């Protein structure tokens, strides 16, 4: 059958223009910048979740650029630990100097370098009345008020100060602070040091750990950008060479976010290539097995390519940055897009001279019904909060439309657009006896049982880390290096946030109170202890004015407790200056003074914006439960998995999917009427419930991507139900394209199930199970209800 030349050339022209335009668009893109591997690009820029905005800020701040390096040298024969330690320190110093001179590194220092701690100590001591006096006065005033003391406030405070000082001198640590006690008889600074004891266990105070000397460094650029990866790795390599020149045999372990980001990008890129090729190969293999003249199956390739091209163009045109995961998951389109090729290509002619347009017009209704209902369903994902889901919605919708258009146009310009399938793919077991019918019914009943009982056993959990390929060796290395730096599992790191420093400090106040109530034995360390709340700071002038003749009272009290009051002249001088002071800084300035004193590793303990700010608190042991929302505090574990946030996205996706499915179902009822609509819709719905039931009985824990996979699977299996119904309406057997389509889709998604990215694997396995279940229902239902197609109607 030869098609009209005008039809063929028109189709070719449209295809050519589309292909050239699409290819030109993609060539014009800077794919390096367009395609992101940053998991934070998967979530909205204006996400209202404070924990995510904190992660975003953390990722963009200095904290994300930190590199932790540990160096050791081999022991020489008979060498003592001191000598080896000194050589180790030397190697660390050389390494640190070499790093500091590299353009990719902003800052580097051996952890034994006490300058950051000295700078902080000096700043706190210098501004001790600003930082520490307001809280000190507040707590003592509360005690005074609670005790209903008969003596005046100033006298009571002086006596309490002298008593506390005398008691303090019997503590072991008093010997170290005796040099500052005459300047600080209120023990403001020693008191802070006592509160910060948990910090000493973090490794920040130690320059060595085991055989290793430790180096802290910070890269100049974000570790998520190319500038923050390879140049940094090269700088580290060069620094190690320098260290080895100084200390032959020096060994190093190091970690940094850049290592994970680079590994993730590399692995995802290779996976993208592999999955796409494997998926395409499997689809072609399915076609090759099922059709008579295999080479003619190549006509299906342009359909897949047209679909992928359209999807790439649409998604890259719609978004400034597109996450690479969209393209990985998008590889599934090969298995979906080929469906329309199957439906058109495998549809037998009614008569040998039936023209393509006539045959296509017979199929256009189910084709449009299946394509548009799926597109409508996926279009609802555009209302999702997650950019990833929105991008997937556009990718799949555009891909399906392009697949349908490409299939219609491609076969319009081919003279012989019918591909005959092999006999086995068309064979129907309709002639089997009651045994087969019973077997089919039992199978369907068992499936129904699984669908009813299994879903109740499902567990749901989301973890943003499942969006990336796990890198166990890097994770193990990271854990080891961080352990050397004192970050062990025994302590819990909390981040307390606020929209500004004052809010953050107020939240910290609430959090520390909660922590104290829930884990009284916890050792806590936070720089928040070094800052008053905004309220305490505002009350300081009035508190000082209220103290009256405190100075004279303190002199007398010190004398009563065996001290020489004149020895405390440094304190009294500073106290007089404080009382006469008129130019106190604003609260924000106060916080900035403290933040400005944080250098090197200590800079991670506090982030004082003009805007969002937070405090780090280290607690050991920590309560089992998460801090209440009112404290605006999260653990670093919560920040790592963002489970709560993604659970919310899952609920949102469930809502959108439900609305989408409702529209899909409604469109079926409109097109096919209620009774047939019910039968059509029961197949994908039953397959979906069966899949969830199966996962539930298997004890699987599902996530957001299982849900998305279910939605996709329902839309796809919905197509099979429509084509089966259309065939039944015409009194024909279901076309073989349904089987081929289902098998190709299952293969394509089965490939995704092999992905090392957990969420991609979840999506792939869900769709594959649903599609196969839908195919099984489509096949078994006629068997269970007896033969409905006369034997002589088979092609």
């Amino acid at each position: 059958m030869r098609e009209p030349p005008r039809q063929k050339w028109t189709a070719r022209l449209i295809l050519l223009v589309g292909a050239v335009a699409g290819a030109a668009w993609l060539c014009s893109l800077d794919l390096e910048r367009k395609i992101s591997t940053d998991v934070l690009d998967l979530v909205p820029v204006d996400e209202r979740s404070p924990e995510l905005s904190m992660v975003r800020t953390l990722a963009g701040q200095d904290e994300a650029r930190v590199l932790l390096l540990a160096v050791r040298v081999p022991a020489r024969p008979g060498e003592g630990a001191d000598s080896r330690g000194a050589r180790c320190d030397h190697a660390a110093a050389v390494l640190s100097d070499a790093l500091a001179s590299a353009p990719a590194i902003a800052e580097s220092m051996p952890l034994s370098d006490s300058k950051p701690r000295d700078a902080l100590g000096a700043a706190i001591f210098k501004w001790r009345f600003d930082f520490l006096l307001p809280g000190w006065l507040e707590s003592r005033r509360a005690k005074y008020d609670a005790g209903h003391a008969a003596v005046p406030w100033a006298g009571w405070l002086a006596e309490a100060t002298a008593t506390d000082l005398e008691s303090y001198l019997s503590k072991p640590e008093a010997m170290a602070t005796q040099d500052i006690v005459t300047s600080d008889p209120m023990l403001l600074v020693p008191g802070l040091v006592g509160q910060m004891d948990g910090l000493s266990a973090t490794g920040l105070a130690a320059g060595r750990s085991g055989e290793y000397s430790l180096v802290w460094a910070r890269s100049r650029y974000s570790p998520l950008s190319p500038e923050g990866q390879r140049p940094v790795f090269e700088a580290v390599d060069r620094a190690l060479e320098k260290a080895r020149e100084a200390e032959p045999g020096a060994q190093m372990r190091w970690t940094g976010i850049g290592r994970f980001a680079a590994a993730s990008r590399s692995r995802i890129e290779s996976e993208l290539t592999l999955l796409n090729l494997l998926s395409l190969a499997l689809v072609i293999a399915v076609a090759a097995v099922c059709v008579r003249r295999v080479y003619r199956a190549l006509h299906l390739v342009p359909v897949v390519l047209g679909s992928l091209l359209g999807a790439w163009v649409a998604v890259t045109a719609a978004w400034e940055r597109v996450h690479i995961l969209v393209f990985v998951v998008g590889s599934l389109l090969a298995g979906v897009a080929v469906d329309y090729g199957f439906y058109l290509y495998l549809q037998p002619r009614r008569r040998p001279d039936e023209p393509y347009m006539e045959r296509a017009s017979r199929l256009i209704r189910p084709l449009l019904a299946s394509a548009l209902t799926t597109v409508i369903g996926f279009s609802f994902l555009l209302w999702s909060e997650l950019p990833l889901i929105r991008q997937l919605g556009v990718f799949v919708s555009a891909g399906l439309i392009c697949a349908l258009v490409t299939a219609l146009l491609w076969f319009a310009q081919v003279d012989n657009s019918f591909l005959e399938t092999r006999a086995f793919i068309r064979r129907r077991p309709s002639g089997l006896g009651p045994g087969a019918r019973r077997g089919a019914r039992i199978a369907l009943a068992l499936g129904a049982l699984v669908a009813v009982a299994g879903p109740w056993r499902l567990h749901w959990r989301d973890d943003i880390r499942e969006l990336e390929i796990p890198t166990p060796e890097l994770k193990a290395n990271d854990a080891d290096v961080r352990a050397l730096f004192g970050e062990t599992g025994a302590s819990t790191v909390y981040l307390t946030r606020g929209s500004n420093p004052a809010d953050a400090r107020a939240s910290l106040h609430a959090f520390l109170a909660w922590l104290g109530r829930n884990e009284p034995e916890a050792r806590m360390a936070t720089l928040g202890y070094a800052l008053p709340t905004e309220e305490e700071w505002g009350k300081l002038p009035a508190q000082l004015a209220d103290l009256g003749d405190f100075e004279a009272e303190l002199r007398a009290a010190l004398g009563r407790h065996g001290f020489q009051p004149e020895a405390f002249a440094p304190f009294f001088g500073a106290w007089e200056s404080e009382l006469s002071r008129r130019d106190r800084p604003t609260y924000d300035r106060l916080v900035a003074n403290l933040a400005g004193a944080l250098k090197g590793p200590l800079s991670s303990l506090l982030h004082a914006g003009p805007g969002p700010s937070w405090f780090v608190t280290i607690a050991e042991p920590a309560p089992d439960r998460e801090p209440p929302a009112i404290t605006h505090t999260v653990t670093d574990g919560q920040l790592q998995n963002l489970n709560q946030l993604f659970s919310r996205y899952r609920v949102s996706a469930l809502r959108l999917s439900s609305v989408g499915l409702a529209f899909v179902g409604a469109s079926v009822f409109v097109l096919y009427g209620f009774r047939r609509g019910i039968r059509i819709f029961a197949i994908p719905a039953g397959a979906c419930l069966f899949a969830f039931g199966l996962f539930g009985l298997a004890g699987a824990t599902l996530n957001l991507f299982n849900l998305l996979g279910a939605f996709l699977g329902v839309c796809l299996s919905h197509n099979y139900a429509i084509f089966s119904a259309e065939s039944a309406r015409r009194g024909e057997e279901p076309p073989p394209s349904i089987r081929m389509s289902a098998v190709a889709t299952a293969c394509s998604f089965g490939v995704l199930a092999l992905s090392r990215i957990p969420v991609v694997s979840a999506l792939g396995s869900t769709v594959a199970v649903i599609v196969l279940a839908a195919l099984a229902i489509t096949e078994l239902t006629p068997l269970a209800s007896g033969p409905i197609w006369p034997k002589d109607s088979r092609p």
Partner: protein
Amino acid sequence: MIPVRQIVAAFAFVAAARGATDAGEVLTPEGAAGEWRPLIGALASKGPIEATFTEQRYFPFRSGPMVLKGVLRTSTERGVSLQYTDPEPNVLIADAAGLIIRNRGGRSREISAQSKEGGAIASLLPIMRFDLPALFPRFTIRASRTGEAWQFEFTPRDAAAAGSLGSITIAGSGTEVRHLEFRRSASQRVEIDVGSTRDGAVFTPAEQAKFFR
């Protein structure tokens, strides 16, 4: 932090010897093998002991010393432990891994022996064990003897350490340690008088857990 460094440095009980009037003989690694060998050997080979002690802390801003009392324990394997009982219960432990301060509630604060501060503290252990090979690189050691009485004075070779730690003196009679002094200056010092001593003490598991790491 400056205070941290000062605090942990002073955990080493910076103090002073009672004016070392007799400078004594400067020991060298070679000289230590001479007439001092029997005494050093006897002191070094002493097993675990348990003794009461009285500590006097002198501060430049107080008229008189702070007086503390407690129990001293040494263990060959576990280091040295000072259990303060009066006026406030505290336990101070110095061992190979560093220093631990344990308060009345059992809450511990640790300082690593490998940290800058802990490294200085770690030298206390070899002093108490008379482990002279470990001490010679760090300290100038002087020894003097009058009859049964003897005295060793340890002065850090490093000037900075000498400034912060001061000198450490151990005095005794026969094979008994009777007095320890940590002297930074005349007005900044700690004196520890060792009282009744029980040699060959055996510490129960409960005592080991409570008074050692």
